[in-house]
């Protein structure tokens, strides 16, 4: 039985990067990509790095605090989208800087799904990287 609400990124096909604190998530298997509101980006970062979801309830996010229902809704969305899976593991501590960044946000928790670039994301012919990253690279004979 799980005693905490700890999650992890569901597979190596789910990759993410942050730009100015805003997270972008790609699903390399489906080609979908995901954008977050400012608060959503911070909560995604916390959850995907193993912070206990319960520990996020009541935190200050802009002018309000993170409510249990709001968080639960957000987490179930991330689970349904296949971005996170439940993990039976000890929770990771919440970094102080994330707390401060969350306090400075102004938008509610949201995640947007896009699939217009699926063809390109599933296989990018030019901007390939090495295979360990999980990007289906087009290799050439050396």
């Amino acid at each position, binding site marked *: 039985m799980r005693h905490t609400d700890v999650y992890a990124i569901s597979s190596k096909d789910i*990759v993410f*990067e942050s*730009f100015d604190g*805003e997270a*972008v998530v*790609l699903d390399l298997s489906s080609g979908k*990509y995901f*954008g977050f509101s400012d608060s959503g980006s911070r909560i995604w970062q916390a959850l995907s790095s193993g912070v206990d979801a319960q520990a996020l309830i009541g935190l200050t996010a802009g002018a309000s605090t993170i409510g249990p229902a709001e968080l639960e809704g957000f987490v179930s969305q991330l689970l349904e989208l296949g971005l996170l899976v439940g993990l039976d593991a000890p929770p990771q501590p919440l970094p102080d800087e994330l707390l401060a960044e969350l306090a400075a946000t102004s938008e509610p928790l949201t995640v*947007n799904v*896009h699939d*217009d*670039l699926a*063809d*390109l*994301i*599933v*296989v*990018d*012919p*030019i*901007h*390939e*990287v*090495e295979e360990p*990253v999980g*990007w*289906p690279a*087009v*290799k*050439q*004979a*050396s």
Partner: protein
Amino acid sequence: MPVYNRERYVVSALRSLVRQRDAADLDIIVIDDGSTDGSVEAVRSMMRETPCIRLFRQSNMGVTKARNAGLKQLLPQTRLVSFLDSDDISPMGRFTADLACFEEDPGLDLTYSRMTLVDKIDGETLEPAADSHSITVRGIHLSAGIFARDLIERTGGFDEDFKQAEDTDYLLRIFESQAKYVMPDTVALYYRRHPGNMTKEADVPFREFMRAIHKSMKRRRADPSLRPVEGIFDVKDLAQWRFP
């Protein structure tokens, strides 16, 4: 054409353009981005025979700034713009084919054609070698496009936040806007696959590609009139495909 240490390929790239002089009144702008090999001499050797090549030199600043430097050199009378990297080949007939689209529709903003990835190009014919391996897709590449000057001006320069994937960002910006395009079946580019391809050098491209997607989402969030970039790129065939 941005050039950085491509003495081995740049002459072929230029020849592939110059041989199409009859199809268009070409003004070939070469930006040497601080090459330390014989690239500049190679370009100059071509210029002796072909006055339509103009060479500009700058210290090494990366491909994004080199592309912007090239755009700044566009002549006032230039109506259409395309790009060619210094190690690639513009297939014979590429301009004839797509310029016809602009003739048919004066309101056209761009043509966006296909590209062939190939591992061996015959140095004489500038065609894929008989024993080469290749695949043709509608990928994401500046050379696939011919852009109306108005569109170039509307789009602005390449975003210098990008070390790479500046081309992806540029094309996304164009297709998000209400640009009027057609997608001919022309093969607009032979994209040379070799160990020194710029985009293979580091892990940077992946993050840069993600940055392009991030910026695209941000733009569309801020401006709902921008549209998703649907149905343009078609690279599915690459999924199951490997160069032997």
